[in-house]
């Protein structure tokens, strides 16, 4: 088995599980796990957004929840205040998040490392408190609940997200499209330029790469992905709330990305899945379950700096090498 085959099996089993989850999960566990898996898929996009920055262009952001929040409020405000339909509200939310990323990014990516991390926290705090206090627009503490508009309506016939299976596959389609998009970008000249900047920004400039523009593009793309996650989560939960914009949420996404494996495409799904399942199972039993999360992060950073995704890669290479050497020494 070649290394690439192992990746292929890993990725395909993830895809297969995702496509059959609404029927397979209820056979194994309680059927509310289908909803939890939908949630995992959505949140994994936020972790993927962190991963794009940290794993590919080398910027540690503690502010990705800001763009999640913008996507979320964009949808809710679009429906409640502007009476937008399903698709226009969805696109409005994502556009709002992407525009915010362009503004915040044009300032933030002038800095790197801790300065960059601090400015992303500051940005998300500013808008967190704005959202809390701007009650007429955002609903303040109460959040902004809304009734979900139909996706398509032909006279009497209406297709809405209230159909559980339909909602699930809508989420899967959008999340899948985002991962496909990330896959394409990562394997494009632009994606190579991201990695080059991550590896050595001074050298990258000397071979003619516009480091600022490359970082900004990555930041806007990451903001877009976080915005899609926020917009999806608004549609899934039928409300928007400032609490999802708090930097705790950004921090959680960083943890998910690190545990799943920065610099790997599907790492964020694995990390997010594991940590959300852990939260669902443990938080009701043990109040201080976050201690465990902390220990898990420390162990990951020390022993598997590339997270579960990276460990999987190492394992796959080891298996491939063993089989290769067996073939070599065989009769």
């Amino acid at each position: 088995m070649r290394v690439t085959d192992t990746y292929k099996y890993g990725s395909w089993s993830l895809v297969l599980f995702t496509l059959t989850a609404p029927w397979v999960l209820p056979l194994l566990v309680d059927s509310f796990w289908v909803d939890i898996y939908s949630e995992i898929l959505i949140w994994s996009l936020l972790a993927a957004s962190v991963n794009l920055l940290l794993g590919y262009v080398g910027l540690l952001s503690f502010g990705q929840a800001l763009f999640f929040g913008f996507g979320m409020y964009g949808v809710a405000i679009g429906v409640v205040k502007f009476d937008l339909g399903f698709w226009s509200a969805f696109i409005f939310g994502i556009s709002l998040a992407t525009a915010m990323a362009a503004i915040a990014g044009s300032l933030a990516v002038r800095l790197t490392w801790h300065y960059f991390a601090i400015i992303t926290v500051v940005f998300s705090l500013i808008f967190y408190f704005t959202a809390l206090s701007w009650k007429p627009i955002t609903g303040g503490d109460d959040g902004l609940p809304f009734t979900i508009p139909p996706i398509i309506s032909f006279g009497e016939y209406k297709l809405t997200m209230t159909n559980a299976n339909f909602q699930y596959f809508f989420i899967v389609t959008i999340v899948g499209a985002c991962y496909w998009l990330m896959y394409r970008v990562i394997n494009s000249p632009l994606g190579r330029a991201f990695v080059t900047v991550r590896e050595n920004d001074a050298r990258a400039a000397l071979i003619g790469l516009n480091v600022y523009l490359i970082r900004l593009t990555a930041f806007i793309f990451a903001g877009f992905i976080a915005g899609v996650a926020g917009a999806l989560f608004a549609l899934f939960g039928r409300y928007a709330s400032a609490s999802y914009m708090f930097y705790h949420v950004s921090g959680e996404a960083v943890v998910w990305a690190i545990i799943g494996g920065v610099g790997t495409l599907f790492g964020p799904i694995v990390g997010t899945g594991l940590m959300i399942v852990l939260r669902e199972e443990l938080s009701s039993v043990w109040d201080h379950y976050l201690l465990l999360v902390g220990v898990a992060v420390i162990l990951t950073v020390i022993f598997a700096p590339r997270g579960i995704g990276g460990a999987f890669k190492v394992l796959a290479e080891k298996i491939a090498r063993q089989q290769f050497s067996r073939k070599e020494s065989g009769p």
Partner: protein
Amino acid sequence: MSSVPLLEVANVNKRFGGLKALQDVNLSLETGKLHAIIGPNGAGKTTLFNVITGTIPVTSGRIKFLGADMTNDKVHRISKRGLARTLQIKSVFANMTVRENLWIAAQSHHGVFSPFKNWKKCVRSVEMADIICEQIGLTSLADQTASNLSHGDIALLEMGLALATQPKLLLLDEPICGMGPAETEQTVIKIQEISKSTAIIIIEHDIEVVFKIADEITVMANGAVLAKGTPEFIAANSDVRNAYLGDDDDD
């Protein structure tokens, strides 16, 4: 056209606080020559490279490349004008393979802002990476991660990164520093080969090598140009001897 010098450094000064790192440096370089800069440590050689490539801004003075003023241009813009350099402290993209290193250097001048094309299908840069690999003699290591290379191979790869951008002028900052005798000999041959098609400015401490390969030598001391001329002229110059060996009177 031939009257326009390739590189023109005019009255360039660089101050770091009270330290005058460069003092009224004037330098004019014609196309197709191998130019060497020598001088004792702290003479301002690397600082001169840094201001030419835009890594640090000049305090005063102008720098022209092919007749166009590029003083205080952004680093990546200067690279796109056709000026490439290697660094004294060797630096490559460590977690990328040799081939990927060379590919991105070749692609950077053709634009990297295409988000959907597969990078392996950018044929021109893929071919260029192969050609440079061959040229610097790293073809057998093309799929190795750069961090696994030996010191000498990293120095070669760094030269490859500069070459892959197809420069008109190549600045080499101590390219053979830390190499063994065999590696040095090979690298010197490579530099001579490159100099047939590309103008080169080389900073080098190995005087033997410099006098063997250079068409023209500039001697710097204390941030200023002390002397400039052919190797024979420099060898006979008494100011240069004093700068390197101290005044005869001291003996």
